[in-house]
């Protein structure tokens, strides 16, 4: 697979993201699959940040550690990132009189890297344009370097700033022309990024979407009518997105006074009978855990989104990690049925939302949906979503007036209910009433402290766990054959079996597609459902595989720990990363091919 990458670096607030996004949109429309990866610091302005686009004509969901083109807003990028440029690559910058250190200079020369200085300030002054238009100028040079046409960029600009009036557009166009003209002055207009593969028009109508936006759309699609949140990176973007959509969707959005409130409001809304969700990151989730426990005992369907970043405490707020899996499974006091699932990209950030609500309502218990900064903020090239796939399953919810009339109070928490799933009906329904009781209770929600009742109700609630375990899918095996991916339902022999979860999926797939060793049978086993934990399929595959490797973005190998805790096999061979960054495709490839 041919892939190229370009990275824009600069201070936060300088326009790194806007250039990244404009290029991404242009490239996707031109027929490329684009994967966008952002790095920035926990500051508002001035921190060193970058936006990297990895581009191919095939599906791609990962970044490389090296780039074909580096765009530097300021000298920090030149200092820190120049070494990342590949042989034959290009550096575009706007720092006057910049000189690399000797060492770097030598490396760049050896690699044949071309360095282009764009005197943006002068150009902008000359055009009498606003400084903000520097972004458009830079983008146009990048665009020209990619060998694309100015018209494409103009179209984008028209779309984005059209509402600002003709004057603005005119100035934008001037900048674009100036950018293209500038490049003509360099190397006789011959400088170009050569290795952009042929476009594939299938991508043209795809969406360019972050995991947060995908999740937001997924919630809306799933009939979620209320979202209660509290800002905390990397969950804040989901809150912002559904808030920005509220006037279109009619959803009730509440930025609560804290995470406990957000969780409680969601719970109240679910109890009343709508679909509602809340979202936060690790520290906020800690605070929500008491409410998770509450929902378990009152058997209230509830959906908690847990967006991970590196901890402990404030940790690295704007970076990524998978360090909260044990938290999702072990936190919240007492013993009860819960479902923990993890999204992996823009596809299942959408799809799993209806799944989460269906499980929550069917099993009347809390569902924790895990994501992380990498998914939440990365830009995915995503097929428009299938509107037919999802169904709403509200489980044992009684709404028929006749059926309601026949209910007894003691049906609500009937301990003999099959699989522990007793009928649920909503406040306001013309029926016998019950108490959604946070103390241990008997069938109608009256407090009952007897030993017999305690056992019955505990077993009732935990029978749901067994049923849920039966229902949820085993992890999915994707086999990689000649660089092509294929879901494999048989328990085949493999040379290499990679086991992982969450955001690692994309980079693992990309890495295995390019995995060295012709004819080797490699497969990736992806865990979407993490609790209850299913280990049968893994056990079978592992017993047949020559080598099994666990890949996680944490220190403990937490998926491995959960597998062991659930009686599954021990995966000794682990590739663990805990520096706040996701795996990069070339990095993972070399780690996977290293002997161990």
């Amino acid at each position, binding site marked *: 697979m041919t892939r190229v990458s370009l990275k824009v670096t600069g201070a936060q607030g300088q326009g790194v993201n806007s250039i990244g996004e404009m290029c991404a949109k242009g490239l996707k*429309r031109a027929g490329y699959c684009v994967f966008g990866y952002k790095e920035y610091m926990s500051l508002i302005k001035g921190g060193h940040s970058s936006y990297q686009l990895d581009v191919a004509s095939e599906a791609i969901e990962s970044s490389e550690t090296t780039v074909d083109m580096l765009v530097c807003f300021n000298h920090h990028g030149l200092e820190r990132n120049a070494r990342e440029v590949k042989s034959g690559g290009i550096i575009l910058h706007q720092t006057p009189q910049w000189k690399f250190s000797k060492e770097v200079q030598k490396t760049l020369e050896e690699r044949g890297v071309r360095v282009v200085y764009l005197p943006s300030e002068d150009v902008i002054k000359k055009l009498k344009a606003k400084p903000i238009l520097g972004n458009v100028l830079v983008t146009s040079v990048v665009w020209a370097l990619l060998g694309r046409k100015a018209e494409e960029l103009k179209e984008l600009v028209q779309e984005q700033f059209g509402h600002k009036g003709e004057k603005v557009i005119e100035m934008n166009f001037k900048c674009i022309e100036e950018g293209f003209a500038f490049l003509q002055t360099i190397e006789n207009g011959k400088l170009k990024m050569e290795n952009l593969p042929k476009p594939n028009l299938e991508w043209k*109508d*795809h*969406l*360019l979407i972050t995991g947060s*936006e995908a999740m937001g*759309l997924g919630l*809306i*699609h*799933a*009939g979620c*009518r*209320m979202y209660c949140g509290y800002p905390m990176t990397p969950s804040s973007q989901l809150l912002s997105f559904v808030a920005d*959509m509220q006037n279109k*969707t*009619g*959803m*009730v959005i*509440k930025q*609560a*006074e804290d995470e*406990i*409130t957000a969780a*409680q*409001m*969601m*719970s*109240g*809304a*679910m*109890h*009343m*009978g*709508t*679909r*509602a969700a809340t979202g936060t990151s690790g520290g906020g989730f800690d605070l929500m855990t008491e*409410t998770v426990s*509450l929902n378990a005992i*009152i058997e209230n369907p509830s959906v908690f989104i847990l967006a991970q970043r590196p901890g402990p405490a404030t940790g690295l707020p704007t970076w990524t990690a998978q360090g909260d899996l044990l938290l999702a499974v072990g936190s919240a006091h007492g013993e009860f049925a819960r479902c923990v699932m993890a999204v992996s990209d823009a596809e299942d950030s959408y799809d799993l939302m*209806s799944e989460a609500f269906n499980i929550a309502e069917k099993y009347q218990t809390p569902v924790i949906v895990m994501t992380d900064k990498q998914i939440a903020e990365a830009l995915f090239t*995503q097929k*428009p*979503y299938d*509107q037919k796939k999802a169904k*709403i399953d*509200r489980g044992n919810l009684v709404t028929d007036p006749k059926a309601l009339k026949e209910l007894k109070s003691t049906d609500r928490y009937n301990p003999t209910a099959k699989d522990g799933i007793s009928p649920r009906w909503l*406040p*306001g329904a*013309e*029926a016998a*009433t*019950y*108490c*959604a*009781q*946070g103390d241990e*209770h008997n069938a109608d*929600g*009256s*407090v009952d402290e007897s030993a017999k009742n305690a056992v019955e109700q505990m077993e009732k609630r935990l029978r749901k766990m067994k049923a849920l375990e039966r229902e949820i899918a085993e992890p999915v095996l994707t086999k990689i054959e000649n660089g092509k991916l294929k879901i494999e339902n048989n328990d085949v022999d493999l040379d290499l079996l990679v086991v992982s979860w969450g955001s690692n999926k994309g980079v693992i797939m990309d890495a295995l597609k390019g995995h060295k060793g012709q004819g080797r049978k490699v497969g990736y086993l992806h865990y979407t459902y993490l609790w209850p934990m299913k280990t049968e399929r893994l056990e079978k595959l592992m017993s047949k595989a020559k080598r099994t490797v666990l890949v996680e973005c944490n220190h403990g190998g937490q998926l491995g720990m959960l597998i062991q805790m659930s009686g599954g096999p021990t995966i000794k061979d682990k590739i663990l990363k805990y520096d706040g960054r996701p795996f990069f495709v070339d990095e993972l490839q070399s780690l996977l091919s290293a002997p161990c």
Partner: protein
Amino acid sequence: MSIPLDSGTAKKMFAFHCGNQCTWCDGCGDYGIWTAVKRALSESDIPPHGVLLCYDVGCHGNTSDKILGYRFHGLHGRVIPFAAGAKLANPRLPVMAFGGDGASFSEGVGHLVHGIRSNYPIAFVLHNNGNYGLTTGQASSLTQQGQPMNSSPNGIPEHTLNSMDFVFSLEPTFVARAWSGDIDMMTKVLKAAIGHRGFAFVDILQACPTYNDFATHSFLMERCYDANAEGHLPDDFAKARALALDTSKRIACGVLFQREDIPSFYEKLEPRKDKKTTAVEEVQIVDTRAWEKEFV
């Protein structure tokens, strides 16, 4: 004290009757509050299935299985946001929340603050017994200084919180007060609270003969009076505040402050303007294609 009930109310009240025995101590003010709540609901023509009663944890929370109606018994200190969330999902159903002084001024004080400033359309009833009853008599923020309590043998070193000044500083739209021995008065203010447009704060001074010997039944009986009967109109914020605050000689009860010209939280939600349905009724698969366009 007189409880004149016409037979219709008695019958409606009986619909709230629950078979479980009450477990409060003899003379506990919760008996009176429990009765007044049933009566206020009945007199408001609300049947058991037509209300959500949300209880915090504490002695008062033990009401949750001593009354019929859709009930919820949640976590210590958290009843307000649960009730508010429920209400926003189905604003057609009356929602009441009940909490203790421990819950509402310590563990959950933030929720009280934000409940009032959010003006959620719910009625909140404070079971104000001046201590942590259920955990056997520790001091709350409203316990008087100088009073030895469980875990505070020397009395509390903190100031006693001036709850009414505090509540008024949050610009409430409804404030009422009653005491647990006066069922008529409680019924009156609870009915008014249920009918209020936004967040109704009802402070009920509750006797707790087991742990509170500073504000006893007879102390309260002696001092509490019906301010409305004495001519207090609840439309003047400053007067209401002053009246609520001055408890040095007598304690003004009744609806102390009320304004109905301020929209509730729900009414202020832009996306819900002109909606005929509630969020509860809107659960269905929503086609997102139109919104996907901006990502292409």
